[in-house]
């Protein structure tokens, strides 16, 4: 026997196959046309499949039938790139607090009906079916989500010690993967948690201090310009966040923003 990874595990005896599911999926050819929910059946779904693998199965069927496969975004499939993101039965990334790619079919049972929709927010226009354009997030980062340090100009890394507590808290905020679940889950379609995570990450570090006021003022102005809703502190964002970014970051953003405005910082137009 050789260590043949891909064929010998296809043995049905090794697997708990057999879920039959009804999927209602949002189909929309492009942004210019109206979309609608379309019903599909998939059968013989293993509980060990990831949610995206289940959609792969559906798409293989659709291609072979000559139908248009369902477009959805995904890339790393290990929960870190932030590319995937579906509204599953009304919850961003589905019933578990994780990314869609890390959601497994064992979270469902035979006979379930599953509604699958794209993130819905006007700053996230639908590209096709379940894929949306999230470049608004990049533009929020462009507005100030960085530390201006051209390559080669950095001082020695140990020149500025950073208290471990600050560094750890900055890391917690910096784990945001920019998937957009916060916007999708928010009743106001607000991007506050995303912006706050970056403001918190950079604002906690000594390296981030020089641009702290301008950063928060410009990033908030940009998220408003993009057309995201305002935050009303409901907490759906944090509950849906696969990285568990806390509401504390929003409080910190608010604190920084009000302080910056008082100190005279104004957004660049």
């Amino acid at each position: 026997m050789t260590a043949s990874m891909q064929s010998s595990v296809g043995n049905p005896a090794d697997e708990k196959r057999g879920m039959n599911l009804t999927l209602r999926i949002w189909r929309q050819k492009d942004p210019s046309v109206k979309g609608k929910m379309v019903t599909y059946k998939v059968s013989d779904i293993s509980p060990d499949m990831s949610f995206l693998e289940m959609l792969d199965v559906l798409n293989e069927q659709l291609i072979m039938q000559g139908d248009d496969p369902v477009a959805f975004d995904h890339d790393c499939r290990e929960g870190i790139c932030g590319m995937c993101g579906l509204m599953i039965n009304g919850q961003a990334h589905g019933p578990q607090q994780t990314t869609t790619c890390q959601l497994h079919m064992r979270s469902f049972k035979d006979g379930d009906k599953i509604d699958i929709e794209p993130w819905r927010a006007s700053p996230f226009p639908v590209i096709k079916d379940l894929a949306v354009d999230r470049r608004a997030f990049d533009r929020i980062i462009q507005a100030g989500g960085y530390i201006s340090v051209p390559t080669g100009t950095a001082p020695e890394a140990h020149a500025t010690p950073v208290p471990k507590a600050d560094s750890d808290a900055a890391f917690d905020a910096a784990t945001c993967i920019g998937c957009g679940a916060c916007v999708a889950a928010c009743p106001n379609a607000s991007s506050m948690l995303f912006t706050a995570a970056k403001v918190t990450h950079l604002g906690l570090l000594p390296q981030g201090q020089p641009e702290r006021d301008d950063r928060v003022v410009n990033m908030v102005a940009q998220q408003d310009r993009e057309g995201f809703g305002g935050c009303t502190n409901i907490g759906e964002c944090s509950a849906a966040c696969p990285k568990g970014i806390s509401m504390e970051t929003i409080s910190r953003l608010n604190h920084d923003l009000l302080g910056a405005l008082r100190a005279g910082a104004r957004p660049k137009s």
Partner: protein
Amino acid sequence: MSCVTTCLVGGKAPVVLAWGLVVTVTHAGRRTPKVAKTNSVVKKAVMAISGIVMVLYLIAHMIGNLKVFTGAESFNHYSEWIRTIGTPAVPEQTTLWIIRIALLVAVVAHFWAAVSLWRQAKRARPERYVTKKAVAQSYASRTMRWGGVIVLLFIVYHILDLTTGTVNPDGDASPYDRLVASFSNPFVTAFYVISLVLLGMHLRHGIWSATQTLGQSNRRRERTVNAFAIVFSTVLIAGFLIVPFSVLFGLVD
């Protein structure tokens, strides 16, 4: 009983005034118009601060209401005192009008911020989800907007009922008699109770939200703030509810 916001005479007034305020705020000079208009966080701060002003008033109002248990004379006297605070140094009702105007500004600002954020949220999600579940959203936070509107309608009725006496069955009587007349009607009491419960929930989310908005919350304080919000709103609303129930059950007549 003395309701201070007597200048409110109709439900439309705040809307009109709200847009008036936008102009005032945006041309006030210190903030550039752009910041106030486009900055959702500033809107939330306006909402938080105006909310705090109203909550402070509610505390005083609730404590004042409890005077009803000291008898008609005492209650009417208290009511009269409110009109004469600061006299004779200042003319009668001066302090009262200062409070009224402050409250009016707070109500209008609060309402403006709410409407504006609500419109922003509508624009941000024109196509709604076919299926949407709430995970973290408390009943209190979900009812902020409609609850707020009902509370506003209640305040209007409340003023017409007890301050101006316009809709009170015993409109020309003393404040104490008006109060008893009003709450003797179970329907009025029911409306009062429902509105106050909604107000309580509004405060429960509002206190937490204001702490967040003003940047005063953090992970350590989160539980404390939430516990405080619950206890505070419960005590406040209980304080208000004691009065109509006492009237209804004949403890006060």
